[in-house]
Each structure stands twice: as C-alpha cells, then as structure tokens.
C-alpha cells in the first residue's frame, strides 16, 4: 500500500504539491485525477523517490522507496513512454532493467508477449509508434511482477484501440489483486476504470472516496418543469411525496423524480406543463466544478467554466474523506 503523509514539494516560489495525505487502497484501481499542472506527476515522482519531497513522506508497504530491496518487484511504474534509448532494442531495454533487479531474462520475453510487442522485440525502439512506446513502458512496469503498478496518464495520445487495451489491462491487473494507481486529467476515462478516486487541484487534496460514492453524489438526475399552475404543481407533487426546488428562469426541478411519473401526475391533477425535461449533470461537469478554482489557466470565459457552471452550486463536498484544507 502506498501512503502519503503531508507530502509537499516546492519549486522556487510555486508549491507544486501542498500537504498531500492519502492512501492508495490495495487491490483496486485508484484514479488520481486533477487538471494539468495539479501536481500528479510530481507526486508520482516523489512516490518513486525520484524527486525529493520538501516536507512530508511517502511509504510503500511501510518502507521508504529507497529501502525497498529490488523495488521493481514491489512497484512498477510508467512515467513517460519515451524514456527509452532509441538505439536500443525493446528486448535489451527490458533486459538491463531486469538484470538490475535480478529478474530472470525469460520474464523479458513474457512481458513483451503480454503487451503484444513479441514480434518487434529485436527492433530498435527508434521506429516505434507512440502506442508501441506506451506498451514498452507498460512492459517495463510489469517486468518485476509487482504488487503495485503506477501509470502516469497512460492513455495520452493513444488511439481508441490502445485506450481500450489499457483500460482492460488495468482492470485485469486489479482483478488479479494488484494495486493500480493511475493518473488522468479526464474524468470520463476514470469513470470507466477506477474503483476509487483521489482528486487533487493545485497540489491539494480535493476528494478521496470510492468511485460509486462519487457517482452517487455527483450524477443526480432531476426533472425540470415549467408550468403556469405553480400552486397546483406543488400540491400534486407533495401528494406523491416529491418536492420541487426552484430552478433557473422560473422553472422547478424535482430531484430523483421520473419523467413519466411526473408527467402522469401532472395530467391526473390537470396541471398544464410548458416544459418537462430530464436534467443530467455529467461526472465531467462535477469534476470541473470541483477543480474550477484550482485550474491554473482558464480558456478565457470559454467552455470550461460554462460547462461547470451548468451544474451550478449543486456540488458540495460531502461525506467521504474530503480535503483537510
């Protein structure tokens, strides 16, 4: 298990990671979500002891990374796909890595086959496509058959087939009981793969909760109603145990109501309806709302904020283990 305790990293004047504390639960896929520049990669580099924290600490199974004996057997990471010498073959690239942690050479062929690079094992990686580079990076992460795997933005720049492959791979790894910690800036991607969610913005923890809970809290659907017979509507709804909240521009919204049910209810009470429409806020919108204040650069008054604004103030951090600050 990866545990972060009050982890901070300062680069000059900027605090890239700011008092981050959370645990990556065992045996599930944990999505590490945040806008670009939120500090995800910095945090991952600190987990691997590549960057030294300004304060705080990270432990893996209770030990500092540097104390792990042959660390590739505990934790495998894909940080950047192109961290490969272009003149070295895929096989040799994995071979030196394997030798450094006393992993048998036959494991190199195993992981190459596993990621579908078996046929280009003896080719120099110079000619590899982005997707092949990504697969080679994943092969290096899986080389030591580690309990924990960590991927930094693994689907970036991949074609749909590659994205699907990585998605299934992560689910497969978790189903084998491994801990998968994967960063992304796309909520939609995480909604499909992650069991648990850690959201950061500007280096701070914004949310740390199971994915189903995040969905429950954030994907409330509502039925929007517009009617000239306001009084009768409220009475009819109250009779059915429902309650309408004031919506935008003189409309009303019934949370958790069904479209058909409310339509029939209105008809039975002779309430004239000018609008009866489903309202759904996507997880993407919820995520953008959550991180709106922590995004470093907005696209003017462009889409980003508007989309988030559509959900308005409906998202409130609740329950779960929310950010301490």
């Amino acid at each position: 298990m990866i545990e972060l305790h009050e982890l901070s990293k300062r680069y000059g004047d900027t605090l890239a990671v700011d008092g981050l504390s959370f645990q990556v639960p065992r045996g599930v896929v944990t999505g590490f979500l945040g806008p670009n520049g939120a500090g995800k990669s910095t945090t991952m580099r600190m987990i691997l002891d590549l960057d030294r924290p300004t304060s705080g600490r990270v432990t893996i199974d209770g030990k500092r990374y540097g104390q792990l004996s042959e660390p590739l057997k505990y934790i495998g990471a894909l940080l950047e796909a192109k961290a490969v010498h272009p003149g070295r073959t895929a096989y040799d690239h994995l071979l030196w890595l394997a030798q450094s942690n006393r992993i048998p050479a036959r494991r190199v062929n195993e992981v190459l086959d596993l990621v579908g690079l078996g046929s280009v094992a003896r080719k120099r990686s110079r000619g590899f496509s982005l997707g092949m580079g990504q697969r080679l990076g994943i092969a290096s992460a899986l080389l030591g058959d580690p309990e924990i795997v960590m991927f930094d933005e693994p689907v970036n720049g991949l074609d749909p087939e590659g994205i699907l492959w990585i998605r299934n791979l992560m689910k497969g790894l978790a189903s084998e009981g491994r801990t998968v910690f994967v960063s992304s800036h796309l909520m939609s991607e995480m909604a499909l793969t992650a069991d648990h969610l850690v959201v950061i913005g500007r280096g701070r923890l914004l949310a740390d909760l199971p994915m189903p809970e995040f969905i429950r809290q954030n994907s409330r659907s509502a039925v929007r109603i517009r009617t000239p017979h306001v009084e009768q509507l409220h009475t009819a709804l109250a009779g059915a145990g429902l309650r309408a909240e004031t919506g935008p521009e003189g409309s009303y919204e019934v949370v958790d109501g069904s479209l058909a049910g409310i339509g029939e209810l209105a008809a039975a009470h002779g309430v004239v309806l000018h609008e009866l429409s489903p309202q759904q806020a996507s997880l993407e919108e919820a995520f953008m709302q959550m991180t709106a204040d922590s995004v470093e650069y907005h696209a003017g008054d462009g889409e980003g904020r508007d989309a988030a604004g559509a959900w308005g103030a409906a998202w409130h951090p609740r329950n779960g283990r929310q950010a301490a600050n």
Partner: protein
Amino acid sequence: MTPFPAILQSEWTKIRSVRSTVWTLALTFVVTIGLGALLSFLTGSNFQQFGENGRSPFDPTGTAFSGIMLGELAIIVFGVLAVGNEYSTGMIRLTLAAVPQRGTLLTGKAVVLGALALAVSLVTAFLTFFVGQSLLGDHSTALGAPNVLRAVLGAAFYLTMLCLFAAGVTAMLHNQTMALGVLVPFFFLLSPILSAVPKVKTLAHYFPDYAGQRMLLVYEQHGQPYGPWTGFFICLAWTLAALVGGALVLRKRDA
C-alpha cells in the same frame, strides 16, 4: 539494497546494447593505432630528412602514440555518451526507480565503464606501440628499453582516466550535449592552446590532459614542471574529483 553484481551486469548490458557507445570505443582503438601507424611510417621512411636537426633524442614511443590526441577525444565522447544518453532520453528516471541507491549506481557505472575503457585502452596502447615500432624500422625501440613499458601502460591509464573524468563531468552537468560542449573544446582547443601561452601555461600544466600525458614521456624533457608519476596522480585526482562531484549532484538532485 540492490546487489552490486546486478548493477554491474545491468550497466554492462546498457553499454553493449547501443551502437553509439560501441562505436566511439571502437573509434578510440582505430584512430589511436591508425594515426600512430601513419606517422610512424612517414617518420621511418623519411627519417633522414627531419632527423638531423640536432633535436633532443628521437622518441619512437612518442611517435607511435601520435594518434592519442584523437583517441582521447573518442574515449571522452564514449564516457560522455555512456552516462549522458540516460539524461538525454529521460531513461535516468527508470534507472533510478530500479536502483534508488544513487551513489552505488554511479559507482557501478564507473566500474563497468572503467573496466571496459581500461581493457580497450590496454589493447590499443600495446598494439599502437608494436605497430608503430614495426613501421619505424631501424629507428624503433623495444618494450624493454628504459621507461618504455611505463609509457605504454601510461597511455592506457591516461585514456581510461579521461573516459572516467568525462563520465563524472557528464553526471555533474546531467546533460549530454552540455558535457560534449564543455569537454571537447576544452581538451581539443583550450588546454593545448593555454599550455603554450607563456604565463597561463603554469596553470594549464595542472590540467588533467597535460598531467596525464607526462606518463607517456620516455625521455625527460627540458622545463618539465614534474615527473610522470606526479602527472599520473594529478590526472587521477581530477578523475576522482569529477566522479565524486557527479555522485554528489546525482544524489542531491531531483531526477
């Protein structure tokens, strides 16, 4: 802790599996022997023309090692590439994730690099000597002559130390291009020029290349600041300083 032999094996695989490192090392061998052979041949066949100037005793060993200026350049590039290609590709992060003990890692790298450079340099030095002597004909010397064996071995150690010096400087600069940009002009231009400038040359005489080349001298030269063994230790001190500096930077810095 990662066992040291595992690091050595891994570093050896890194060096042998990339063409550029293999080629620069091969180039060290070829240019040192080739250029030495060419000059030995020219000297041997034209000895009458420029041998009679009453200059200090003719040095057949030095003639055979005429190519060492280019050989040292190739082995410096080898030292830079062996360390620097990890930085230029970002592979250093993978390396440090696999072996987080950074001091031990650089030690392992230096051992592999040093052993390989020494092996190649020894073969190069002895072959250079024998090829050169065979082409010098009547004017050749033998390995048993005074100071000659020391000079031949000195050439091998000189090349090895320059390689490790370059590796250490590259680790300090953590940048391959910058390391080449500093080391190549320094050894090829700056140091030879400065060691000929009257006042500055006292300082330039303590540069690693000038110091290391003292080991190659068979005859005592006029106005030499120090002997071959002092030269050896000055060069060694530079090498160790560069490696220690590289280790300190590697340990301290974010990768």
